[in-house]
């Protein structure tokens, strides 16, 4: 795919803005954006599995596993953040493998139901296993993130950590999507029988996409745990899992930028309602509006507006980018 100079310039501007945010905005904005970055990691890491045609409505379960693993290792055993984050991510991926291996043979709605059951199961375990997780009283006093022995005590340093994590995750996911692996995932999502007939081991590649997503959800969870420093099982339930899915659909599934745009747009716009019942209503309305008016998602908006502009001005100019 040819990357136009325009896209590159836009990326540099966005990156410069994000890097300079601590010099402009207060702690509240740093806090808000660090959470947006977490949501972007969650949203983008669901994409490979969606590309394979598997509807995963339980992604927040793997965030939960990453969060509790990292928090408990750091709090109870004094494991440094870098290590506990990695442990959380690896455990999330391992559980993903264990769940995915038997259930990814199911397709469509059957697989979706397994993931729904799983996210509820994980939430219940976190609520019930009181001696370890403190249950619904919540796990408090999670240590702040550290880096090479230094505690990242300020919001600014934590903000940069979140930005760094997000950029690394996105870069890896981007490279994978634009490699043979990404092409194989796409082929499985389009016609899995044809992919098989070309020698693709569909089960293994789908499992890889799924557990890779779980790994990065674990990363997001681990960062979240040390950033918010308080874990509460109901936060990782079905609602968050559907939100992650909605990020993908509202942003658009046709392009790598879709889940990123969707997560950023919805997290920022729903900020006034966060934690209130209106949040769900807001998400539902945006989701419905997208399906009705913009089936390709928000990333189709520029193209659509350009089309309207051309037809309104009555001139035809072929668009420069597809």
């Amino acid at each position: 795919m040819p990357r136009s100079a325009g896209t590159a310039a836009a990326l540099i501007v966005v990156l410069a803005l994000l890097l300079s945010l601590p010099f402009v905005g207060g702690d509240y904005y740093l806090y808000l954006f660090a959470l947006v970055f977490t949501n972007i990691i969650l949203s983008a890491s669901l994409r490979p599995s969606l590309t394979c045609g598997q509807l995963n409505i339980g992604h927040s379960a793997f965030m939960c596993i990453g969060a509790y693993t990292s928090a408990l290792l750091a709090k109870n055993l004094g494991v440094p953040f870098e290590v506990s984050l990695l442990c959380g991510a690896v455990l999330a991926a391992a559980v993903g493998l264990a769940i995915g291996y038997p259930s990814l043979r199911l397709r469509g709605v059957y697989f979706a139901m397994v993931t729904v059951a799983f996210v509820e199961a994980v939430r219940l375990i976190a609520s019930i296993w009181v001696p370890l997780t403190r249950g619904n009283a919540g796990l408090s006093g999670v240590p702040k993130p550290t880096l090479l022995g230094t505690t990242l005590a300020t919001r600014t340093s934590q903000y940069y950590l979140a930005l760094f994590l997000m950029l690394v995750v996105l870069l890896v996911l981007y490279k994978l999507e634009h490699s043979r692996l990404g092409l194989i995932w796409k082929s499985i999502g389009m016609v899995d029988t044809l992919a098989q007939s070309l020698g693709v081991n569909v089960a293994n590649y789908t499992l890889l996409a799924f557990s890779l997503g779980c790994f990065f959800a674990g990363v997001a969870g681990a960062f979240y745990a040390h950033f918010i420093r308080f874990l509460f099982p109901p936060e990782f339930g079905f609602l968050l899992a559907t939100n992650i899915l909605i990020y993908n659909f509202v942003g658009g599934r046709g392009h790598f930028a879709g889940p990123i745009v969707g997560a950023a747009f919805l997290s920022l716009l729903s900020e006034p309602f966060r934690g209130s019942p209106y949040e769900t209503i807001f998400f539902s309305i945006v989701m419905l509006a997208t399906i009705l008016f913009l089936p390709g998602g928000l990333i189709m908006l520029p193209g659509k507006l350009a089309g309207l502009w051309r037809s309104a001005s009555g001139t035809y100019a072929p668009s420069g980018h597809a």
Partner: protein
Amino acid sequence: MPLLDTRNLTKHFGGLAAVSHVGLTVDEGEIVGLIGPNGAGKTTCFNLLSGFLRPTAGTIVFGGEDITGLRPHRIVGRGLVRTFQLTTLFQDMTALENVLLGMHLHSRRGLPQVLFSRRRFPPDEVARCREVLEFTGLGSHADRLARNLPHGHQRVLGIAMALAARPRFLLLDEPVTGMNLEESGRVMALVKTIRDRGTTILLVEHNMRAVMGTCERIVVLNFGQKLAEGTPAEVSTNPQVIEAYLGAGVERA
């Protein structure tokens, strides 16, 4: 020893015997046609040979090894590759990407190269895929989306993808159905060239002119059983075969 040898191949769907006791042998370098009225079990046979269905009974021996019940991607790994009826393609990918997927099994590229290389695909793989497109006459369409190709080209692209997998044995499911005389002539010439380059071919086709003109040997199926076998001339004058085709038509009319 034949390249492909099925013994007693049988597939039941509930009470229906879609394929029963079929013995099919194909020697290396042959072009064999598999024909029969609708519902005779041709496609089921293909699905059994390519591993998409597991036979109820019987064995499939390919290249001297038993491949019965192997999963599809394993069978492709042995060099037995199939195409699909109609236009089963990755419609939203370019012709080149479709063929690149066909090369899947022959790619040697590890994770470090994926993460740290600037190129999406190694140049030698892309070059080989362009060669395959060139060979099948799609060279100038490499960067068009599969969905935007004319019907005839889409069908040929299906064959090109299978070729990229470097088959020893190619199963073609209705390669020229829905094509005009000129197009089908070109595709059948392509099929002959593929054979001359060393790939054995078994094809299912309803276009009798194409089958009779290309295949050296023809196997006729009817109601899941082998009805006749022989050269095109033998088969087309076989009274049983004529009855199977015309009789079925009269019954349904």
